[in-house]
Structures are given as structure tokens and as C-alpha cells.
């Protein structure tokens, strides 16, 4: 048993987080030093919560120092639990906050994944309002954005975020650590309605299968039947070579994405704005994903101040065949959505194809023709997606079949 354990952050520049130091003692009960920015409003609620947590972990005697810069209850609970775990006093127990009803919505294989917003897994302040910016997906990251010494703290915080934060309909994603370490992360996220697991530095079908097996095992142990999808990230030369093998490694893979920071380092070059060095790998990912019938998703655009650069980057990604783009700042989301929105020409063509398809179905015809050209099923599917995207982005009226207008 350690003498004392610390967790969290404190200081003038810290927001929405808290810091604990717990020093177990042999007598004297709980000596709580509570210093909170919101003491006036929530002081007694905070004290009750902390005492309840210590009781949960059966800690009867300890010196507890607590500094709070406006942490929400899910953060306070995560920090306290991590401190207790660092002391080795958790006895394998997890102190779970309530699983809020608004955290329990499902996802679907076909949903749009145009934007996925990365949030550092150990930074509660970024999590709280992420959903209001309406990304298609929110990624709680346990990998690169978390310091090696804070991986345990991030696991607990991400778990509590999945239980408590309203992401307002965004797909709930978690990027686990590189395998095999990432397998340990799964117990903290799989039971709590994670929709998509991002598998970093994925280099083989085996990587996906390892994750899949552990996920199934967790779900079976708990008697859960929820659907968990996977998005492998290609971040190495080997991964790029094996992109199709990876994309088809599990029926639950919904998308394949690429991470260019690591990929360019792996092939011995540097990332440029033009991206010639990654053209092959990006095309490889697009082709592998399309061949596997899943969504190809592009890497992040890392200059958060350059919105025009981002727009151009999205247009280029779209032209290469990508369906989505990673982002690291909420202000990038709308730019990405707008740039991925179909053009008037694309909408016009898609409406013609869909109408032709529906007409063929009504007539019981086995083939779809537009004018003198035959239309293949994948083209119809793509057109249907374009229509959905046009409607969602306000470019096409929902009642377009009845003469609803196409908007600018």
C-alpha cells in the first residue's frame, strides 16, 4: 500500500477538473480538506459525494485533500476512484455513476461519419460541451493525447463520461491504446454503450480479431447484447499494405481510417500540405474500404486556425473517395460537413438514379436504367446516400419526390 496517492489537476488555469490527494491513516476517520471554486453552490453536495465514495471503497480513515475548479460529479467520482486504485484499495470494484438515459441511444452501420471529434481522454473540460457542436462522432481518446502516467485516470474518466455526458446524438467512439495495452481499456468502455472502438496502429486482421474477441467476452460475461462496431486506423506501411485484409477482418467493422502523422514517420518522410507522400496510402484505404463495403475516413486536419485549408483538404479527401474526416477542434465540424455536402450536380444525378431505381422496382424490373445506361446496385446505394446527405445538410427538401425544392 502506498503512503498517499494523487490524481487530477489543480491550479489557476485548470477548469472543470479537480485534484485529490488521499493519505490513508489508521484512525481518526475521514479528515477532509475541501477547497472548491463552487463551494457556495455545491459544497455540501461535493462533501457528501466524496464521503460516499470513500465509504463505497470501505476507506474509514484517511486524510483527503481536495481542490476543485468546478469539476462535475462524474469527474470527481473518476478522480477519487483513480486515487483509490493507485493506493491499491479498490478491491477490483468500480464506483459507477448513474447510466443516464440520454447515453443509451443506439447507432447504425450506415450512419454518416463525416466528422469525428477527438477529445483527450483525461480532459473533462473538453468533454462536457463536445456534443453541442454536432459532430457525427465523438472520440474519447485513451491513446496519444493521454500521458503514459495518466492512462489509468483517463480510463476511469472516459468510462464515467460514457455514463453521464449527453453527446446529443453523436456516435460514441473510443480510441483505445495500441495493442496489447488497448485490450485492458475495453473493460472500461464496452459495457457502457460505446458505439465504435477505434483500433490504433492496426497492422493485421489479427489485431481486429483480438479486440473483437475481448469485446465479445466482456459482453457475454455481462449478458449484454449491444452492437459494438470497429474502426481500424491504418498508421503504418504494413497496415497500408494489408488494408483490405484489415477492412474485412470482422463483420462489425464499419469504417477504415488513416492516421498520417504516424504513417509518414513510418515510411520515413514528413507530412506536407499537398500530401503527395500519402497519396498511395490514402487511396489504398479508400479502395480497401470500398471493396469491403465500409466507409473510408480521412485523417485529421491539424491546423485549427486554417479553415480555408481545412475546406480544401476536405474537398480533396472527398475527391479521393473519402466519406469523412477527423477533427481536433469543434470549429472544424461545420466546415467539414459543408464541404462533404453534395453539390447541386451530384444531387440532381442522385435524384434521377433513385427515381429510376424506384420506378424499376415498382415495375418489377430486375435492371435499373437511366436513359440508355444501366445502373449498378452500388451506384444506386451511393445515390441514396447522397440524397440522405443532401436532406440532412438542408440542400434538398425531405419531400423532394413531390417536387420539393433543391436548395443552394
Amino acid at each position, binding site marked *: 500500500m502506498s503512503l498517499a496517492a494523487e490524481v487530477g489537476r489543480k491550479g489557476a488555469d485548470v*477548469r*472543470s477538473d479537480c485534484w485529490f490527494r488521499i493519505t490513508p491513516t489508521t484512525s481518526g476517520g475521514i479528515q477532509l480538506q475541501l477547497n472548491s*471554486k*463552487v*463551494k*457556495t*453552490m*455545491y*459544497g*455540501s*453536495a461535493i462533501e457528501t459525494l466524496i464521503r460516499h465514495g470513500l465509504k463505497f471503497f470501505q476507506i474509514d480513515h484517511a486524510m483527503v485533500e481536495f481542490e476543485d*475548479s*468546478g*469539476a*462535475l*460529479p462524474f469527474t470527481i467520482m473518476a478522480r477519487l476512484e483513480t486515487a483509490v486504485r493507485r493506493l491499491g484499495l479498490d478491491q477490483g470494484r468500480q464506483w459507477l455513476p448513474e447510466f443516464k438515459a440520454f447515453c443509451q441511444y443506439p447507432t447504425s452501420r450506415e450512419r454518416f461519419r463525416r466528422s469525428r471529434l477527438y477529445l483527450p481522454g483525461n480532459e473533462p473540460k473538453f468533454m*462536457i*460541451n463536445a456534443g*453541442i*457542436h454536432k459532430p457525427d462522432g465523438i472520440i474519447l481518446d485513451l491513446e496519444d493525447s493521454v500521458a503514459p502516467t495518466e492512462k489509468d485516470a483517463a480510463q476511469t474518466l472516459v468510462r464515467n463520461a460514457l455514463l453521464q455526458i*449527453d453527446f446529443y446524438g453523436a456516435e460514441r467512439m473510443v480510441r483505445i491504446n495500441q495493442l496489447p495495452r488497448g485490450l485492458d481499456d475495453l473493460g472500461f468502455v464496452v459495457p457502457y454503450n460505446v458505439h465504435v472502438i477505434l483500433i490504433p496502429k492496426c497492422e493485421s486482421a489479427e489485431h481486429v480479431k483480438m479486440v473483437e474477441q475481448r469485446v465479445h467476452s466482456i459482453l457475454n460475461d455481462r449478458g449484454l447484447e449491444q452492437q459494438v462496431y470497429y474502426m481500424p486506423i491504418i498508421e503504418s506501411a504494413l497496415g497500408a499494405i494489408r488494408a483490405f485484409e484489415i477492412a474485412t477482418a470482422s463483420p462489425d467493422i464499419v469504417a477504415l481510417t488513416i492516421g498520417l502523422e504516424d504513417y509518414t514517420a513510418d515510411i520515413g518522410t514528413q507530412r506536407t500540405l499537398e500530401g503527395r507522400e500519402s497519396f498511395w496510402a490514402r487511396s489504398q484505404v479508400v479502395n480497401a474500404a470500398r471493396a469491403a463495403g465500409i466507409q473510408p475516413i480521412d485523417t485529421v486536419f491539424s491546423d485549427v486556425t486554417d479553415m480555408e485549408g481545412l475546406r480544401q483538404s476536405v474537398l480533396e479527401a472527398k475527391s479521393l473517395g473519402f466519406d469523412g474526416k477527423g477533427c481536433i*477542434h*469543434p*470549429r472544424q465540424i461545420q466546415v467539414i460537413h459543408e464541404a462533404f455536402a453534395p453539390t447541386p450536380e451530384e444531387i440532381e444525378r442522385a435524384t434521377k438514379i433513385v427515381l429510376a431505381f424506384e420506378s424499376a422496382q415498382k415495375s418489377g424490373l430486375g435492371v435499373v436504367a437511366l436513359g440508355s445506361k444501366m445502373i449498378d446496385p452500388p451506384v444506386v446505394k451511393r445515390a441514396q446516400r447522397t440524397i440522405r446527405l443532401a436532406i440532412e445538410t*438542408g440542400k434538398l427538401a425531405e419531400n423532394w419526390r413531390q417536387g420539393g425544392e433543391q436548395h443552394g
Partner: protein
Amino acid sequence: MVKNMVKNAAGRLVPTIVNDKPAIPYQGVGKYRPGGTKAAPPIVSCADYPADGNKVVPDLKTALIIAGIKDGMTISTHHHFRNGDLVANQIFDAAAEIGVRDLVWFPSASFPCHAPIIKHLESGVVHHIEGSMNGPLGDYCSAGKMRGLGVLRSHGGRYQAIQDGEVHIDIAVIAAPTADPFGNANGLTGPSACGLLGFALADAQYADKVIVVTDNLVEFPCVPWQIHGNYVDHVVVLEKIGEPEKIVSGTTEITRSPDRLLIAELAAKFVKEAGILKNGFSFQAGAGGTTLAFVIFLKEMMKEMGVKARFVRGGSNQYLVQMLEEGLTDYILDGQTFDLEGVRSLRENPRHVATSPFTSYNYHGKGNFSSMVDVVVLGATEVDVNFNANVVTHSDGRLLHGIGGWQNCLFSKCTILPIPSFRDRIPVIVDEVTTLCGPGELIDVVVTERGIAINPLRQDLIAATKKSSLPIRPIEEIKEEVEAICGGKPEKPKLGDKVVAVVKWVDGTVLDSIYQVLE
């Protein structure tokens, strides 16, 4: 506890005696009608002033002595330098050396740089402060340590109080970036150029004695004369009167927070969707990162729609100046200069017009500009479900901000508060505001990151935006969502019975009391 507390028309308990003078409880918006005649300064004679026009005296202490400083007098100063003011502290240091006591400091606002005044409050040189208190002085007052009651007024309310004779200024000290020996002064040039000197206008006109302090004495005539030397008794030259770079404080920079940017964008979209954004319209955006961002979004929309404003009210800053120079507005009607681009523009551009609280805000005038503005966006520390708003105290009850022109701006045709629904864990949308600064009937729209609430009194705005895609929701619903996030209803601050300050309404009546914070 202060005696003679009564419940005013807003349902708040307020004192009827404030610093030994009778005070009128708030009676409702537009209900109170003043009587009598305006105040006036004493008649003086040219015979008593130097015929050569040279009113320069050796130092501030001498000026105060010649001006007849004595116990209990009211001394006024101005906040044109905001947190870069170097004069106010020197006045009270000099007063302490002279040995006077129980002065009333009547600043147009105070800032953290004025924290040294605390020692003069403690030693007895200063009895109390009548003026908005930012930072440490607000904290000091909230702790119940000030002997008299703080009196918080809007910029227009301050002009009204002087003009109505509610506050009699014995000595006004005006820090002026450029002045001549006669006392003509402006803020446009010199090493400490800060732009406008409008907040000092009432003081110059109504104070018994007026001292101009400058660090840039020029030969007569100093033109343009924002302050007329004919009102001035003495001129003092100091090495440095202010740090103009500090007028650019944290509240005059655009927010980088994605949440605040979203709020600003929603506010701008609301203005567009409600049909307010059209040729010839006018707007005002207060200081603060979110409202500045609102200006940027609005500007882009104006460009896209080909809309031009007739005038914008400031707080001028580089963004308003850009709009003026790009032809997006005919005029800036400026009440306060927030950055050095504003100073430059005011100096160079005849369409950048200096105004004062008399023209823009004075409620006891024959009309004022504020009610002519189509839309105003303002900050707030709290808003309640009845759209009442607080701008001076935090949710813990502590007095930490000034009112500025906030109350006056509420008379715009559409008042929008773009605010976060909570800050860290502190709910901003609450059941009842800690301190009432603005009656809910004057606040039309609250824009948060979690939705837009329109005051039910504004059925016209509700109808105008009904078909929009904006996230319009009842304010109660937003409040409940915020409380759920924050972990329940916040506890009320632990306040004592002792009233430490009052908030005056624009007409001089007492709108609310601020109580001592116990913890």
C-alpha cells in the same frame, strides 16, 4: 441590517436611506418621473482665474489643496484607461498626505489596478465608493468592510445622478492624455492617448472644482477640446497618467472558446432570422469576448447579404473600425474606446463620432440614443427564468463587476444576452438572480450554447423565428438541463443581513441591494 428596508416594484428589499440620503425605491420601467430642476455648479468669475490662461500648478497635492479639499468631500475620477489608470491612486495618496478623511470616491468605474485604494478605505481617508467596483474592491465591499454603502450606477445613471443633484461632486480629477495650460483637453493624442473622455463630461460641467491632469501638455489651444478649459480650475502635469495598452483588457479580445463562438454565431443568426438585419439597421455590442465574436459573425452576414448599417454604437474597437472603413456602417457612435485602433480611428475619421453618457444613455434627458438601437448584445453573470439579469455579482454573491452602460442598453429594440448556460459548474440560468440589475421585461432573448430562449413578452420575435432552424427552447427547459449537468439546483450563497451596496436603476431609483457575503 440597514433600517428602512422596503420591497420595491421588482419585489426586492431595498433601503430608503442610502449613505444618509433619502433614496427612492424602484417603481417599474418608465414609472418614475423626476421633478424639480437640474443641479448646477457654483457661479464663478473670470476675475479669479489667470488672465493669461495658465492654470498649471506644480503637483496634484497642491491642486487638491488649492481646490479646497476637506473631510467628507466627493472626489470623482474616470476609467478611460480602464485597468491602466495611474491617477486615481495618486489622488488618494495625496489626500492621505494632506490629512483629510471620509472622502467619497465617485469613479465612473474601478478596476483591479485600484486595489491600493483599499488601504485608504481601511485608514479612513476614503469612506466609501460610489461607482462600479471590479475585482479586489468589489471583494472588499462584499466582505462588509466598507463603512458606507457602495452605490452602483450605469454610465447613464451616473450622468443622471450628477445632473439631478443626487451626487454633488466637490472635486473632479480628469486624466487627459493631452491638455493645454488653460485646461482644454482631449484623449486623442499624446503618449497616453485613450480615445474618448466622455465619462468625464458631466463631472466637468457640474463639479465645484475641476482638475485636469496630463502627461502631454501642449501650447494653447489643445484641439479638439473634448473637455473645455472653461470648466477647468487647475492643470497638473504628471510624468505618466496611464498605460493605454491596458485599456485592451481581457474583455476586449475575441473569445477563442468554441462554445462561446457557437453562442456568438447563434446570436448573429438570430438577428438575421428575426429580420433585424436589414439596410439602415443599427447595433451595439458590449465589451466581452463573446459579443466581439458576435460582431465578426454579423459582419460576415452583412457582407453576404449586402446590408449596411446606419450606425453602430461602441465600445469602439478594431472590429467596428474595420466595418466603418469597409463601408459596412455610416457611423460609429462611440461611447468608450476599447483599443488603440479605436483611438486612431476616432482621431482620424469624422464618421467615428465621440459621444457621451448624456447623449447615449441619460434617462433624464429629452430622449437618448439607446432606445434607437435596433439590437444590442450584452453579457451577464446570471439570468433567471423570468429573464431578469445580473451583471455585477457572481452566483456566490460577491461583487466583482461593473454595470457600465449595460442597464442603459436594455432599452434597445431587441436586447440579446449571448451567455453560456453554465460556467464550469456554476449555472448561469437560474431560478432567481442573486442581484437584479436588469428587469426581465427589457431582456428579449437569451442565447446559450444549449439553445435560444425568447422572452414570451416578445411574441413578435417568436413569430418571426418560428420557421427558422434555430434551436429555440423555453428558458425553463434550458435551466433544468443545466441543473442536471451541474448536479442539481445550486445552493443559495450564504449572505448576511448587512447591505453593503445598492444597485440603482437608470432613473436613480433603487433596484436592488447587495448583501455581505459571509463565506
